C-alpha cells in the first residue's frame, strides 16, 4: 500500500522556512516592475563560479562558465525569444543582423548585418565573418560540438560586405534556429591566420575579441575573469560597468564567497543554503528556469552481451513495476524538500514544446508492482529477492560521486526496489569514470541528469534509434519505431500545435514503456545580492539579458564605484 503523507506539526514547522522562501521567490523572481533607466549605468556584478573557463571560442566551449562568458563576449545574428520558439523566426530578435529576408522557397535567408557593428578591436563586423564562422564550425578539423547541429546549412555566400546569405539543404522548421542559435559570429581577421586544427590550442582562443556588449578586460587563470562594458557598442552600452567571474575551485568555496559578500551571485544553491537566505537583508534567492531533468535511465541492452536485451531491465513489465515502486514525491521531499519539482516525463516542463503536464503517469503502487512482477514470472525467493529462470532480479545503479542529490536518490531507489523484491548494487564512481561507463553503454541503470536545448530535435538524439551509437546520446539504446516516427514528424512539423501533439505522443509512448523513472527537474536556485536588479530569466541561459541588469545609484558599494577606468 502507498504510504500516507500526513504531516505532523513538527514537519510543518520544519518546512516553514522553505515555504516562506519559495513564496518570496515567487514574488521576487525578477525586477520587471521598474527598469534601470537613465542614470542607472554603472556597477559591478561578481559571479562566484566553481570552474574556470577553458576557452573563449564559442564553437569549442564545453563548460557552463565557457557558455556564460562567450555569450557575453560574442553576438549571434539573432536571439531566441523568451518563449524559446524554434520554428521559423517567430519571436527572434535582431542582434548582429538588423533584419533578414527569406527566399520564396525558404531554402535561403539573407541576413543584413548592422552597419554599426564593430569588433572589440574596432574593426567592422562584415558578412565575411558570418561565412567564416559557419565554415569554421562545419570544418571537421575543428571538432566543434555544434557541427552535427548545423548539417542542414549547405553554405553561406557573401552578397555584399553587409549581406550574408545562408543556403539550406532542405526546408525544416528549425533551420533559422539552427543557424542563429548554434553559431556565434567570430572575427575572421583575428582567427583566419591560425590553422583550424590549431585553434584548440592557440593563444588566440583566449583573447575573446567579439562584438558583444561586454569585452574581455583581464583573465587571471584559476582566479578571475573580468569583462567590462563595451561603451561604444552598436546595441548600446550595458547597464553594468563590469562582470567579474570569481573562480573558486570547488562548490563550497564558491558558496562561501557569496555568503561572505565577496560575490553577488551564485548560480546553484542547495536546499540548506536557500533557508539561510531567509531574513537576509543583503541577499535573496531566485528560482532560475531550467531545461534540465533527471531520471533513472534503464539500459535496454545487456552490457555484458551487446546486441542482446538486458536480462532484467530489457523487460517492459519489470521496468513498469520498478517505476510503480518509486514514491517520487516522497523522495523529492527527502532530497530537496520544497525547492525542486517532480519530473513529469523525459522533458523539462519549462520547454514550451514539451510543457504538457497532463501526460498519464505510472502511479506509485507497490502492491500493483509486486503483482506485475509475479505475473511476469519474477517470483520472490527465500531472501525476498525475486528470480526468474534462475536469474535474480538484480542490477547495479551507476551514479557520479560528485552529485550528492543523485547519490541520495540512488540510495532511496535501492530501498524502494528492495521493497518489491529487486536487489540493487550501488555503483558510484568519480565523474570521468561514470561518464566512461555511460558513453560505452557499460551499465545496468544510471542516474542521468540531462540538459536539453530548446529544439525538439534534441530529443531525437536521446530517445530515437538514430541516437544510438557514436552520432547520438541515446545511452540506454532505447528503441521504439513509433517514437522514431513521432519525433521525425515533430521535427518536421511547421505548425507548433502539431509539433507539440507529435512530441506529446512520443513522450507518452516513452513513459508507457517506462524507459526511465522520471525523478526530478533540476532545481536551479541562485543566490543574488539585493543590489542587483534583474530582468526576466530565459530558461536556456539565465544570463542572456545580463547586459540589462542594473544597480541603482543609491545601492552601490565600493566595487560598483570604480567606474570605467581602464584595467591596469
Amino acid at each position: 500500500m502507498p504510504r500516507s503523507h500526513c504531516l505532523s506539526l513538527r514537519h510543518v514547522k520544519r518546512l516553514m522556512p522553505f515555504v516562506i522562501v519559495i513564496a518570496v521567490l515567487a514574488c521576487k523572481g525578477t525586477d520587471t516592475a521598474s527598469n534601470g533607466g537613465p542614470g542607472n549605468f554603472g556597477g559591478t556584478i561578481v559571479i562566484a563560479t566553481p570552474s574556470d573557463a577553458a576557452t573563449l571560442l564559442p564553437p569549442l566551449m564545453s563548460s557552463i562558465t565557457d557558455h556564460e562568458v562567450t555569450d557575453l563576449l560574442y553576438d549571434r545574428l539573432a536571439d531566441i525569444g523568451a518563449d524559446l520558439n524554434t520554428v521559423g523566426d517567430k519571436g527572434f530578435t535582431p542582434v548582429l543582423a538588423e533584419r533578414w529576408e527569406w527566399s520564396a522557397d525558404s531554402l535561403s535567408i539573407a541576413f543584413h548585418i548592422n552597419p554599426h557593428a564593430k569588433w572589440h578591436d574596432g574593426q567592422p563586423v562584415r558578412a565575411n565573418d558570418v561565412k567564416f564562422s559557419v565554415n569554421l564550425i562545419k570544418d571537421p578539423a575543428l571538432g566543434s560540438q555544434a557541427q552535427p547541429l548545423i548539417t542542414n546549412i549547405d553554405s553561406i555566400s557573401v552578397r555584399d560586405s553587409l549581406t550574408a546569405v545562408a543556403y539550406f539543404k532542405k526546408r525544416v522548421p528549425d533551420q533559422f534556429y539552427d543557424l542563429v542559435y548554434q553559431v556565434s559570429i567570430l572575427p575572421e581577421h583575428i582567427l583566419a591566420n591560425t590553422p583550424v586544427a590549431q585553434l584548440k590550442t592557440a593563444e588566440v582562443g583566449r583573447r575573446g575579441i567579439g562584438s558583444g556588449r561586454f569585452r574581455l578586460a583581464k583573465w587571471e587563470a584559476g582566479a578571475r575573469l573580468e569583462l567590462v562594458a563595451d561603451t561604444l557598442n552598436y546595441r548600446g552600452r550595458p547597464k553594468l560597468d563590469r562582470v567579474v567571474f570569481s573562480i573558486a575551485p570547488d562548490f563550497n568555496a564558491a558558496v562561501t564567497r557569496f555568503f561572505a559578500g565577496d560575490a553577488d551571485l551564485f548560480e546553484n544553491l542547495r536546499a540548506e543554503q536557500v533557508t539561510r537566505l531567509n531574513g537576509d537583508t543583503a541577499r535573496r534567492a531566485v528560482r532560475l528556469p531550467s531545461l534540465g531533468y533527471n531520471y533513472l535511465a534503464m539500459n535496454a541492452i545487456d552490457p555484458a552481451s551487446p546486441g542482446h536485451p538486458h536480462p532484467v531491465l530489457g523487460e517492459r513489465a519489470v521496468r513498469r513495476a520498478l517505476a510503480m515502486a518509486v514514491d517520487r514525491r516522497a523522495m523529492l521531499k527527502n532530497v530537496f524538500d520544497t525547492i525542486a519539482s517532480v519530473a513529469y516525463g523525459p522533458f523539462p516542463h519549462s520547454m514550451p514544446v514539451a510543457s504538457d503536464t497532463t501526460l498519464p503517469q505510472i502511479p506509485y503502487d507497490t502492491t500493483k508492482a509486486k503483482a506485475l512482477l509475479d505475473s511476469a514470472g519474477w517470483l520472490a525467493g527465500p531472501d525476498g529477492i525475486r528470480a526468474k529462470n534462475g536469474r535474480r532480479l538484480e542490477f547495479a545503479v551507476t551514479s557520479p560521486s560528485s552529485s550528492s542529490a543523485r547519490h541520495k536518490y540512488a540510495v532511496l531507489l535501492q530501498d524502494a526496489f528492495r521493497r518489491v523484491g529487486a536487489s540493487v548494487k550501488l555503483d558510484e564512481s568519480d565523474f570521468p569514470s561514470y561518464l566512461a561507463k555511460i558513453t560505452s553503454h557499460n551499465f545496468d541503470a544510471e542516474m542521468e541528469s540531462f540538459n536539453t536545448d530548446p529544439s525538439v530535435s534534441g530529443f531525437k538524439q536521446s530517445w530515437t534509434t538514430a541516437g544510438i551509437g557514436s552520432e547520438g546520446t541515446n545511452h540506454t539504446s532505447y528503441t521504439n519505431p513509433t517514437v522514431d516516427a513521432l519525433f521525425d514528424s515533430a521535427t518536421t512539423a511547421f505548425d507548433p500545435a502539431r509539433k507539440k501533439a507529435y512530441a506529446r505522443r512520443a513522450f507518452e509512448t516513452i513513459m508507457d514503456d517506462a524507459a526511465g523513472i522520471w525523478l526530478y527537474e533540476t532545481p536551479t536556485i541562485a543566490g543574488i545580492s539585493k543590489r542587483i536588479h534583474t530582468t526576466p530569466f530565459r530558461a536556456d541561459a539565465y544570463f542572456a539579458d545580463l547586459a540589462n541588469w542594473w544597480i541603482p545609484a543609491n545601492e552601490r558599494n565600493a566595487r560598483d564605484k570604480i567606474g570605467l577606468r581602464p584595467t591596469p
Partner: protein
Amino acid sequence: MRRYLVLRALQALGVVAFITTLSFMVVHLAPGDPIGSSLQGPNVTEAIRQHWRAEYGLDRPVSEQYVRWVRLVAHGDLGFSFSQRRPVRDVFADAIPRTLLLSGMALLLSFAFGIAVGVLQAEQPNGSRDRWLGRVLLLLYSVPDFWLALMVLLLFSLRLRLFPPGGLHDAVLYDYMTPPQQLLDSLKHLVLPVLTLTVLSSAVVARHQRGELVSVLSSDWMRTALAKGLSWRAAVRRHAFRNALLPTITIFFANIAVFASGSIFVEKVFSWPGMGYVTVTAVAARDYPLVTAGVLFMSVIVVTGALVADLVMAAADPRIRLR
C-alpha cells in the same frame, strides 16, 4: 664528495623516472579520459569525442603515448593541458609562484613557532606548561587539515568577517589599489591559509623539537657544561639548542618539498590556485599531461629536498661523512 653527488643525482633520476612512469600508467589506465571529461555537453556525440582523441593521439596504445611524452619532456615540453586548454608550462608558471608564496610563509612561520614552543616545553620537562602545551599540540596534530581549514574559514571569514574567504586578492578592487593597499590586500588574503598551514605544521615541529631538546638536556656533556659554571640558559643556547636543531634541519628540508607541491585541501578551501589546486583538478579531469607533469615536478622537488637536507646535515654535523 663529487662521487657522492653524482651517485645521488643518478639515484634521484631513477626515482623520478620510476615515479613519473608509474603515475603516467596509473592515470592512463584509470577509467575515463580527458576528452570525455571536458566534452560532456548534451549535444556532444561520441564521434566528436573520437575526433579529439585522435587529434591528441589518445587513441594510440599507452606505450606509444608514453614514448611520445618522454620525447617531449626530453625537449623541455611538458605538453598541453586539456582541462585548461593551454600549455602545461603556462599553468605551472601561474601556479608555482602562488604555492611558493603561501607555503614559504607557512613554512617559515611554522618552524619559528614550532621551535619556540618546543623550547618552552623542554625548559621544564613534564612540568605543567609542558603537559598543557603537549595536549594542545596533540590535538592540533590530530586535526585533519580540511576540517581545520573549514573551521578557520567559518569563524574568521563568515562569522567574524575579519578576513576574506579566499582567493589571491580582491577580485575587483585589487587592480585599482595603490601598491601599499595591494600589499595589505594580498596579506589579508594570505592570513587564513597561512594560519591553517602554520598551526598544522608547527605542532609537528614543536613535538619534534621538544623531544630532541629533552634528550640533549640529559646528556653527559650538558651536565659537564653546567658543572663548568655555565648558566642554564647559556648552556641551552650554546650547546643544547644547536645540537637539538640538527634533526629539525632534516624535517625543514623534507617539508620544503611537501610545501612546494602545494596543500591540496588548504588551497581548495581557500580558493588558492596553486599547485595543490592544479593537481587535484587535473586528476578529477583526467588531464594526463598536467597530472604527469605535476608528479614530475613534485618528485624532482622531493628528491632535491632530500639531497639538500643530507648536504646541510653533513655541513652542520662534522660527524656525518658523505660517501
